[in-house]
């Protein structure tokens, strides 16, 4: 970049567009035929808000495409910013047709890698293959990207049929194939044109007498099954299990299926093995024969019942189990393992099976008592275990909490649960399930700082930020508006932009084809993560609340994605007990987390109203919003309508007056309601200051008056009242819990209760302190 160009870019960054245009005009005057200066001129127009003029000019430039990478790159950026996705890719395609240089084609190909655009990848690699036909790698790229295009959602009918045939021809012309990766491309193409017979022959011809590659092995067995070639399926299943010594359950399933079809004995062979997989294979055999699985299940449990996996293994066959008989068997086998550690795991499994048979046990007092007795019986083992090891007896405690909250989802029971979890975590600080529950329960009683402290202890890093942070950052702007956590979480999306794209290119260069489909998907899922969308909206709200726009520059390269991928892991929250959501509990437990990503679309619509980017909200479904959010949405909408002369100040005042009442109790909703009100008021201020449309002076004065009264009431009355009510409620609950029989049975003493109440008080106070500053 020349010094002059740098000067122009700096001027754009500083918003001095007039100066930038002047400088660019000088360059154009000196060199009128330099396309890059023409493109740069239009880029300045775009940045200064003259989008239509810029678009018109750039479309003209595209008709005679530039042949330099700099102009192409900037044109692509301009069209992308204008939301003209097709044109942004067309820029390169036009240039590639007219000037098919290696440089332009590789840039075009890299653009496909960076944007997950398989059509661009296919077209550019076909062009690269034609340009450099002696390079084997480009032929492989062309063939593989043909496969990717043929299976993409956007593929046209022709692309689904013709393109994979073309790809097959390309790779077949390269024979003899040199690696498993090359065979992988061919068999994926053959699969997509439905030539399954050749899939088998190609894999076997390549492998010869060598060991099958794992990827090809899986494809081979799946294809033989599909083709109903049971002799071969039987043969290869045996080779894998016996010769490769790979005790693989999917292979066991194929062996069972093929041997039953061929009337061969498989039962004795399975029994000979004596592994966990083979014991499960006996259950599978019973299922495939249509016989009772019960005896095989009991045999399995006699051996493996003392392992944590036993519950999960049998649960997957539970629909075939005679539940009444199983319950009796469990009752008769109360003691199955003499070793104390094993006995504890067995007891945990028994409890979980009982609950799986009848989830209503959670509401029964006798079951509750049994959980406490069993927890106390084995709790001494917690002291014996390695610090970083897992203690299965903790499962009893999670069930105690689930039972407690199922019976009555009260603030008192939430605090009892916190008291219990804090106590257990003192000794078992690495138990992450308990820690995640603690984070969520603290959030529910408005203790964001304490939730945050516990979240830190999970040592969440890298990709985990995208899949786990919803427990901390959901509705962050209305729980504890703070940039720090958002900045930390958001790094993963920045890393994805650079690192994943880079390694996708590396993957193509190294020919690691069997990983590329998933790497492209991985890139797309992070790029369009629903949590990323949520965080972008939180950034906007927090910047408004804190009157600090600076952090928004950090995320300026990211936009709200209309199509999204919900990568958030909620399963880990329920990965204890019966390992599934307890539905009546779920809604209340996760009440502060918008679980449906559609929520963000509504909030994005609201942001669009505030920023004047949209004026119409046809059929906006507000059902996913809380009452105060609905009120906020309606007020903001009506205010924008007032500026558009489609409403009146009377209607706006009416909505101001209909604000939902703040309920003064220990709940996340206290901060939520107060912060949503403050954000709404600041949004209205923004609309007043930035609206192009003018309304009468009187209306403006009235609106400002309504808004200031709203803010004053929150600052001068509501926060103080909420704080006092919280202190009073905590005092009352503390004295009640000092005499709790349950806590005393679990060995929780008065000092621990005092400590945890201090924490809750402090954390609530931190929330109120922050609100006072806004």
């Amino acid at each position, binding site marked *: 970049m020349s010094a002059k160009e740098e000067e122009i870019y700096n001027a754009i960054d500083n918003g001095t567009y007039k100066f930038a245009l002047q400088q660019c005009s000088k360059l154009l005057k000196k060199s009128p035929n330099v396309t890059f200066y023409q493109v740069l001129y239009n880029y300045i127009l775009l940045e200064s808000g003259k989008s239509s003029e810029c678009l018109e000019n750039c479309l003209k430039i595209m008709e005679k495409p530039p042949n330099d990478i700099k102009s192409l790159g900037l044109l692509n950026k301009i069209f992308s910013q204008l939301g003209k996705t097709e044109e942004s890719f067309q820029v390169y395609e036009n240039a590639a047709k007219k000037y098919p240089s290696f440089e332009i084609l590789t840039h075009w190909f890299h653009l496909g890698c960076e944007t997950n655009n398989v059509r661009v990848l296919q077209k550019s690699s076909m062009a690269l293959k034609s340009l450099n036909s002696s390079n084997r790698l480009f032929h492989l790229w062309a063939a593989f990207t043909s496969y990717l295009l043929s299976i993409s959602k956007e593929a046209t009918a022709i692309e689904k049929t013709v393109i994979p045939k073309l790809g097959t021809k390309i790779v077949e012309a390269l024979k003899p194939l040199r690696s*498993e*990766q090359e065979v992988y491309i061919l068999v994926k193409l053959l699969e997509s044109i439905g030539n399954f017979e050749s899939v088998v022959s190609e894999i076997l011809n390549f492998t010869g007498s060598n*060991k099958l590659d*794992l*990827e090809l092995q*899986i494809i081979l067995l799946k294809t033989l099954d599909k083709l109903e070639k049971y002799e071969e399926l039987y043969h290869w299943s045996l080779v894998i299990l016996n010769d490769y*010594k*790979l*005790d*693989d*359950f*999917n*292979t066991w399933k194929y062996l069972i299926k093929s041997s039953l079809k061929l009337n061969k004995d498989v039962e004795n062979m399975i029994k000979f093995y004596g592994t*966990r*997989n083979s014991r*499960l294979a006996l259950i599978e055999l019973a299922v495939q024969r249509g016989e009772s699985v019960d005896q095989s299940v009991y045999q399995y449990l006699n051996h*493996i019942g003392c392992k*944590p*996996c036993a519950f*999960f293994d049998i*649960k*997957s066959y*539970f629909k075939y189990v005679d539940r009444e008989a199983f319950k009796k068997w469990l009752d008769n086998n109360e003691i199955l393992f003499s070793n104390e550690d094993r006995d504890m795991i067995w007891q945990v499994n028994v409890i979980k099976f009982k609950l799986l048979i009848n989830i209503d046990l959670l509401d029964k007092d006798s079951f509750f008592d049994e959980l406490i007795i069993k927890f106390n019986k084995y709790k001494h083992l917690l002291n014996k275990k*390695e610090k*970083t*090891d*897992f203690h299965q007896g903790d499962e009893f405690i999670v069930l105690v909490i689930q039972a407690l909250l199922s019976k009555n989802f009260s603030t008192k029971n939430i605090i009892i649960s916190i008291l219990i979890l804090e106590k257990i975590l003192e000794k078992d600080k*690495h138990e*992450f399930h308990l820690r995640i529950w603690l984070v969520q329960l603290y959030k529910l009683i408005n203790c964001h700082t304490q939730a945050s402290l516990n979240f830190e202890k*999970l*040592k*969440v*890093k*890298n*990709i*985990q930020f*995208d*899949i*786990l942070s919803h427990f901390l950052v959901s509705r962050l702007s209305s729980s504890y508006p703070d940039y720090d956590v958002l900045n930390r979480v958001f790094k*993963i999306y920045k*890393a*994805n932009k650079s*690192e*994943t794209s*880079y*390694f996708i290119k590396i*993957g193509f260069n*190294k020919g*690691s084809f*069997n*990983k590329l489909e*998933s*790497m492209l*998907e*991985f890139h797309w*899922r992070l790029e369009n993560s629903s949590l990323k969308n949520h965080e972008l909206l939180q950034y906007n709200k927090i910047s408004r609340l804190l009157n600090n726009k600076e952090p928004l520059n950090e995320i300026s390269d990211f936009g709200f994605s209309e199509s999204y991928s919900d*990568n958030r*892991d909620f*399963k*880990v929250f329920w990965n204890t007990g019966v390992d599934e959501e307890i539905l009546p509990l779920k809604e209340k437990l996760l009440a502060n987390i918008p679980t449906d990503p559609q929520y963000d679309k509504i909030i994005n619509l609201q942001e669009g109203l505030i920023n004047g980017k949209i004026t119409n909200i046809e059929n906006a479904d507000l059902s996913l919003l809380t009452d105060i959010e609905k009120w906020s949405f309606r007020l903001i909408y009506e205010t924008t309508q007032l500026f558009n002369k489609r409403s009146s100040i009377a209607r706006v005042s009416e909505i101001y007056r209909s604000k939902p009442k703040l309920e003064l109790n220990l709940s996340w909703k206290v901060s939520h309601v107060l912060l949503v009100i403050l954000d709404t008021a600041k949004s209205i201020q923004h609309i007043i200051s930035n609206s192009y449309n003018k309304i009468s002076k009187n209306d403006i004065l009235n609106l400002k008056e309504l808004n200031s009264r709203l803010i004053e009431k929150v600052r001068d009355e509501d926060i103080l009242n909420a704080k006092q009510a919280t202190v009073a409620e905590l005092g009352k609950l503390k004295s009640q819990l000092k005499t709790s029989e349950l806590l005393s049975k679990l060995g929780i003493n008065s000092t621990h209760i005092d400590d945890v109440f201090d924490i809750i008080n402090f954390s609530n106070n931190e929330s109120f302190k922050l609100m006072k500053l806004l």
Partner: protein
Amino acid sequence: MTSLSPFQATDLFELNPINLDPLTENFNIGFYLEYLTAWPSLFFKSSEISSECKDIISGYMMGKTEGKGKDWHTHITAVTIHHSYRRIGLASYLCNNLEYITDAKPHETRFIDLFVRVNNSLALHLYEKLGYSVYRRVVGYYGGENEYPMDTKTINDHKDAFDMRKGMKRDKGEGTRENGREYRVLPHEVRF
């Protein structure tokens, strides 16, 4: 009901129950993707079929090949297991498979090695059972960049690693050493 399959990038979204474990490292995206692209067949996972018929990842193996001549070997970078699937031989299952793959063409390495914290007795015991032995003690291996040791005189069980090795058929005992626990080196000496 364990099955073996290649690890894919999107599996990274499913690793919470494994990677929230305190002893399992969570690498940055680039590190995982480097292994996927450079050693695609040596990064694989064990999966379990759940009651919802969706696979659950119960463990994974990240391996690579490196070195030259006599040092050409397989390295276990990470092997880790979901807490509900421990003590059923899954770690051995994954290690044995890596050994099986890299003992054959096209890899044909001479030995397989890994690093384990000196005080991680559970893991040490597991690897010894699988036929690994201590080749050398790497002083300060887990100490971090700011704590690089000056020499090998001072040892610390929390910060030092044992480099454990198991010879493949073509190694003929050259990659292993008796009294390896007493043989000390610095971290830079174990780079290939």
